[in-house]
């Protein structure tokens, strides 16, 4: 029997995306979260007295790893070293090893894979021979099929584990399609376990053998919802099983609250507070985005206050506590009841305009006046179809809602 921890995408020292100002303790929780997730992972490894630990890429958030992150990581590895737990580590697209920057020396229990897939051997306390095969990124973009270079399972290995930071073809993903592979390719290698990394959403791709993306250890933006942690994998001659352990200290969540019948701000505030109260008593902090629906009865002034962020501001007045809930966004969901007068008047024309604008060329034409002139475009979301769709949807809603507003701007000049 062999038992090990499989983690990936630690993204140490990664900032959280999509936040604005917040109280100091929330900041602190964010700063610490990725680090604490690693500490938890190490805690579990030590507690379970595992045979080894696999960390499959993207340990650090960026190629120029911060000293802090490296030092922290080294210290945590030192903890494992003290317990004589080896760590198999591969670098991913975020923390590829090609750069000239500083690399802190790691304790001797840390085995780092090189550019070409290679196999390291380990004999466990139970005298089982384990082969671990993997590779590290040496540049940001690796598009070749690295899986091809992986050897078939060695005869002398009691167990062979494949570590692969890459994209499983066929998945919907926002992540880059690096080092792509297919399930068939993996299975053909006849390994006992595939420890994958790169995709932040936890998912099991196969049961025999287990092929698992453990997801990242800590969600870092509103999209990274769901369980965040690592896998405790136990392989025996006859059985294979994995157990998930949560490591995240902060969870992101989107909730929808019906405020049907609510007229004033107080009603809305109370409904939200109630909902939040139900969310409490969890073992971690929560970052929540709220969509308010069924807002027909809401007074216009209240609506305005909500969209201008006054309600959010009020809800963000929280005291420091162990498991706090931080609401980072509140939005009124547009009513389903649409005013289609104009589109009814000229539905074809309207529809045509919508379709046209979805096209990259047209869309870019409209927005190039900014994107072409800023040096920062690389920092922003790319205007891909998803983005375009999203923006057009918002634009459509805006036109509609503005047209609906009674007595709309008559005194424009």
């Amino acid at each position: 029997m062999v038992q090990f921890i499989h983690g990936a995408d630690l993204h140490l020292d990664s900032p959280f995306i999509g936040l604005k100002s917040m109280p100091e303790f929330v900041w602190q929780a964010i700063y610490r979260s990725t680090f604490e997730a690693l500490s938890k992972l190490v805690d579990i490894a030590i507690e379970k007295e595992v045979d080894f630990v696999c960390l499959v890429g993207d340990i650090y958030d960026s190629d120029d790893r911060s000293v802090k992150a490296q030092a922290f990581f080294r210290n945590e590895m030192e903890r494992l070293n003290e317990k004589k737990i080896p760590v198999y580590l591969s670098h991913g697209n975020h923390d590829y090893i090609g750069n000239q920057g500083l690399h802190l020396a790691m304790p001797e229990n840390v085995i780092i894979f090189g550019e070409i897939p290679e196999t390291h051997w380990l004999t466990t306390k139970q005298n089982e021979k384990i082969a671990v095969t993997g590779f590290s990124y040496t540049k940001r973009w690796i598009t070749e099929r690295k899986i091809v270079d992986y050897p078939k399972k060695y005869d002398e290995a009691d167990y062979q584990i494949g570590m692969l930071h890459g994209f499983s073809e066929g998945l919907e993903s926002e992540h880059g399609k690096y080092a792509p592979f297919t399930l068939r390719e993996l299975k053909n290698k006849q390994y006992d376990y595939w420890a994958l990394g790169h995709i932040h959403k936890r998912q099991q791709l196969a049961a025999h053998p287990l092929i698992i993306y453990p997801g990242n250890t800590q969600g870092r933006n509103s999209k990274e919802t769901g369980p965040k942690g690592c896998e405790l994998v136990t392989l025996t001659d006859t059985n294979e099983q994995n157990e998930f352990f949560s490591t995240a200290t902060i969870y992101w969540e989107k909730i929808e609250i019906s405020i049907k019948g609510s007229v004033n701000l107080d009603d809305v505030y109370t409904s939200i507070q109630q909902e939040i109260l139900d969310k409490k008593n969890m073992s971690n902090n929560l970052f929540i985005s709220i969509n308010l629906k069924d807002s027909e009865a809401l007074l216009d002034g209240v609506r305005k206050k909500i969209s201008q962020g006054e309600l959010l501001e009020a809800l963000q007045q929280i005291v420091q506590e162990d498991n706090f809930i931080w609401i980072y966004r509140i939005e009124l969901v547009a009513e389903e009841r649409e005013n289609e007068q104009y589109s009814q008047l000229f539905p074809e024309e309207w529809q045509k305009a919508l379709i046209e604008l979805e096209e990259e060329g047209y869309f870019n034409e409209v927005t190039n006046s900014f994107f072409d002139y800023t040096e920062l475009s690389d920092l922003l979301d790319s205007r891909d179809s998803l983005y375009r769709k999203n923006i057009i949807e918002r634009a459509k809603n805006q036109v509609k809602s503005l047209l609906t507003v009674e007595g709309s701007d008559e005194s424009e000049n």
Partner: protein
Amino acid sequence: MKIKSIEIYGFGKWIDKKFVNLEQTQLFYGENEAGKTTLMSFIHSILFGFPTKQSSDLRYEPKISSKYGGKLVIEDDRYGEVSIERVKGKSNGKVTVVLPNGQIGSDKLLEKLVYGMDKTTYQALFSFDLFGLQKIQRMNKAKLNRYFLSVGSLGNEQLLKLADKFQLEAGKLYKQTGRVPDINKKISEVQNKRQQLRIAKGKNDQYTQIYFEKENYEQEAKEVRETRTKNESHLEQLSRLAANWSYFSEIIAIQEDIRKTSIKNMPQDSLFQLNHLNQSIDQYKTKIMQEKERSKQALEKSHLTKSQSLFIEQKEEIQRILSTIDSTKAILQEKDFLEREVKKEMEQILRNKLQLHLTIGQQIPTAQTAEQKKEYQKLYQSILAVECALQEAIEKKTFLAYQENSLSEQIDKIESDIWTNHLFQEVKKKYEQSGNSQHDLGQSRLTKEKSSDIKVIRFKVGLIGVLGAFLAVFGFISTSQLGFFLALSGVTMIGLAGLLYSKKKHVKIVNEDKSTNTYADYIKQIELRKQWRTQLAEIDQVIMESKEILETIEKNTNEKKELINKLNQIIIENGYPENTTIESLVHKEDPFDSLRERVRAVEEKEELLNQLVKQLVQWKKQVQFLESVLILDWEHYPSIIEGMTKFYQESLSNEQKFLSIQNEEESRQKEMKKIIYEQRNFEQQRMTLFQSVEAKNEEDFRKKFILFDEWKRKKARLKLLEQQVSEDIKLLEQFRDKEDLVKQMDKVKKSIELHKVSEETLMNKRIKNELALKELEKGGEYSVLLQEYANLKSELQELVDMWSTHKVAAELIERAMTHARKNRFPETLQDTTKYFELLTKGQYKQVLIKEEKIEVQRRDGSLFDVLELSQSTAEQLYVALRFAFVKNATDIVKLPIMIDDGFVNFDQSRRVQMIELIKQISKTTQVFYFTFDQQYLTKFRKDQIEML
């Protein structure tokens, strides 16, 4: 849709109002405040709902009636005649739609009837008022074209306005060259943050540099440390040499020493032997000492005391005296017996003496002679005679005293009743007139006498007192029995005198004054005076006799005294007891005879006693020589005897003890001789020992032994030293002397110090670097920046998204408009041309669209840009466009047009044309025209007009 009738239950000022048979073109006329706007609002409200309470629109809830709402009956192409009723209800009011077939519907059905149109859009497209035209006036030329295009293609400028608004919002968010818009600001913030982050990242390089420096320092320190360690071990070696240097020199010294000294070998135990011998000798010496001490003590014990030596000397004499002790004891007993007898006798004599009134020391009177006896007889007779005479006189004196007393009493009695002389004389004069001098004389004499009498008595008493006092003093002074007697009688006399005196004092003369004296009284007085004088005479006689008697008594007393003195003389002379009376002398036998006899017997016994004492003294003298050794009461014979006896016995036993001690001493002396011999033997042996090592004496022997011992130690030390230094000996030989070695050591030491300093410096540097590395590893700042940067990016993204949204929204509208223009404008354009021509009375023939621009062609064929049109012409074009759009929209939406005095500022001819146009339009679309302009009343048929 055509509105056929309006029924108002209650709406604003309208209560229970009906408008029926409404025409295709319907004019509502009314002054200001007549209710035109309310009516329009009513129609809007029925079709699209009452304004909500929060709405800015007026709700027109009637203040008087409780009913709110009303009903429209319409003619719809699709459903036929439909009634729409709206009354008060939830939010927008309760709607009831009744179709011709009786089907009843609500909001949903109504929505279909109004083609899904909402109030805003309806108003935008189908309502005409002043504002639309006014806008044209305000519009700048550039916009006007688009405006017209919009109106032409979308029927209304509202969407266009919206597009403009979006553009404006986008412009507020971002300008390519601006700095103020939000995005521009945010961009610079992001850039700043990125710069900060770059700097922070630079710290990674710094880390590397510090890290390498640290490693270098460590390496250097290691090298320095190695050199130092080498030096230190060298120094250690040198130090050892230095330390051994002393050993080295010691070795040489010892070797030299050993070479020089020649020592005769001494047996290992020679010292022990010597000590053993010495010990034995000492033991014997001690023994001798002890024995000597013992014999001394014995000698002391056997020393004779004074008494013992005396005993030994006088043993025979003592034994002899001892043999006399019994006889001496007998003498002693006899002596005691005699002494007791004598004493007893003496006591008896003494007692007898006292019985015979002799004092203790008084000699016993000698026996009376016959002569003496005669003399005593004579004296006795004389005394008796005197005493008899004295007795008689005393008795007489007592009688006289009695007489005197009674007379005195009588006189006192009379005197109390007698008047005073003066009074008596006065009374006498009164009764006799003749001077009775007798009375006076008598009276005066009497007084004289009396006083002198008193004086005599006083004198006598005083005499007795003086005499008494004299006697008493004398008696007290004389110590004899007579003296005592005298004193006693003296005191008695004083007492008597005192008594008499006090008695005399009581004599008083009573003078009483009598104022009322009768003659009888006077006579009585005379009588009384007579008695008084008699009595006085009597008493004088008695006093005389008393005087005589007293003299007799005195004489006898003196005689008696003389006799008694004589007697006393005899008593004293013969040594008789004091109390011896003359009677006892005369009548009794001699009382002292037996006494004299006893005294003689005593004297004999005393003589015997003296002899015994003499014998004893004699004996004592023999014993006297023991006085110095026997401590006892030498005056007391029994104790002397006892002491003697005891002394003798003790001395005998002591003599025995002394003899035994002497024997012991003799044997001791023998023993000592033996011991001394032994001691000499050992001393001889010791001498032999000394000689064996050629020592003169013990001191010499010991010295020699010490030297030998030292020599042995040195040899051992040498061996040890040689062992220790052995490996360094060669090294030691490298240095000339110790100084040379020390110099070398100093050199090495200095080098070590230098290395230490430089190592410390390196270590400090390394520590500094380590701290710097730790600090960098904490890296809090970098994380903060990273998150801040992420946040700014998020914010920027949000702004950009908003901007994109605005842009896209604007573009959407524009695009929809463009497409609409392409699709619809051609049709609309025909109607526009038609209407425009009508409105301009044929001045303009054509409305064209050319390259996204609207152009108009005048009758003469010349083309005009809309910008070139006059204000009024532009307004006409606007109206033409709007009406054309409505007309063309009727295939989709058929709703009545509402015009609220939209063309009041049109001039007369244009207004006529306008009415003409309305009439044309009403062919396809119902038109409600609300106006306060009376001119219109003439332009319409009566049935087309509702007067409000």
